[in-house]
């Protein structure tokens, strides 16, 4: 890399490969679970969904099998990526008073891209979504395993209720996340790259959505460069420069 100071690369790495793979594993399993779960709830049991036709497994079997895959991925992710998981959690619970301004300007900014400044690794809306997603996924996994383990009876009735209610809340949150993260909304254009392909997004998109994070990443990168590193910042590196 022959990046001169003052002319940084036009893109910046946001999520490393490991995070991206974990995210992809979670969302493919979750999408299958949502589809088969809703299929069952809507009384389609026995009538194979397109996914069930494709695999030759009934939707109920498919759901439980993929449920176990998600459980495995979640446990693996939490164990192997405990540092990242902890960061996700600690970054997501940190709110400050000025975030209220961010929320106030958010509805307009979604269209104009003129978000109020925030200092977080995630924007305040993401932090709320993260907390909701983590809690709901945990509830879904615990009650899902509960459903499987008791198979029926009075405990099943409660697991089933919780599992369903969690699904009702989880679904709109996921729809919102995908709507925002896909970059369909003008304010969030380009952010999808943060989690896909190389995990690099354009600096001007980062500047708009995660300004404080971008500044810290740049500061960390130039500090590395001053020490003779190549400054490309492999993955977790900029995280060390996080504010506390």
């Amino acid at each position, binding site marked *: 890399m022959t990046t001169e100071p003052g002319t940084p690369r036009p893109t910046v790495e946001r999520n490393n490969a490991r995070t991206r793979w974990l995210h992809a594993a979670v969302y493919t399993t979750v999408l299958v679970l949502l589809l088969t779960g809703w299929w069952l709830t809507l009384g389609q049991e*026995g009538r*194979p969904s397109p996914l069930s036709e494709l695999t030759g497994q009934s939707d109920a079997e498919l759901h*439980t099998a993929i449920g176990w895959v998600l459980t495995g991925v979640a446990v693996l992710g939490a164990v192997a990526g405990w540092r990242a998981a902890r960061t996700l959690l600690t970054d997501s619970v940190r709110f400050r008073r000025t975030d209220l301004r961010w929320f106030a300007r958010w509805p307009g900014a979604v269209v104009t891209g003129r978000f109020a400044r925030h200092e977080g690794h995630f924007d305040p809306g993401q932090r709320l979504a993260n907390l909701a997603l983590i809690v709901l996924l945990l509830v879904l996994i615990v009650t899902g395993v509960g459903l499987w383990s008791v198979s*029926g009876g009075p*405990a*099943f009735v409660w697991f089933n209720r919780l599992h369903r209610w969690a699904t009702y809340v989880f679904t709109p949150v996921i729809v919102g996340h995908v709507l925002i993260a896909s970059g369909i909304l003008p304010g969030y254009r380009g952010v999808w790259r943060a989690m896909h392909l190389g995990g690099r997004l354009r600096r001007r998109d980062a500047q708009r959505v995660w300004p404080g994070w971008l500044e810290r990443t740049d500061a960390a990168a130039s500090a590395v460069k001053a020490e003779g590193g190549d400054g490309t910042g492999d993955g977790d590196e900029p995280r060390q420069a996080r504010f506390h």
Partner: protein
Amino acid sequence: MEIVEPTGGAEISVPFTLVVDSSEELGPTDTGNHHVHVYFDGDDSSYEVIESGNGEEHEITVDSPAMEGVEPGEHTLNVSLRNADHSAAGAEAEVTVTVGEEGSGGSPSDDEDDESEEPPDYDY
């Protein structure tokens, strides 16, 4: 778990009447009770769900997922008792039946009222 109707060797025409009898109380998933999967020839990926009425009559229509891909001829009719989470509870039964040509009137009085525009008779 037992199939009371149709009896083994019977010739049936669709829609046909199914009566099952099991030792368990049946109900939809959210009651935590057992239910029954009905399918043909051991293919349990496409099935009718029976969630009530032990020993009562259930009508299996052309629209039933259980009938998917079932051609006229000899078939095994399977029923399987399921836990509320849809896993097999162990009890199963089967009878061999001959499915008549559709619309050929294999048995008396099943011709005109086909009513295929009716939704499948799940009672939620």
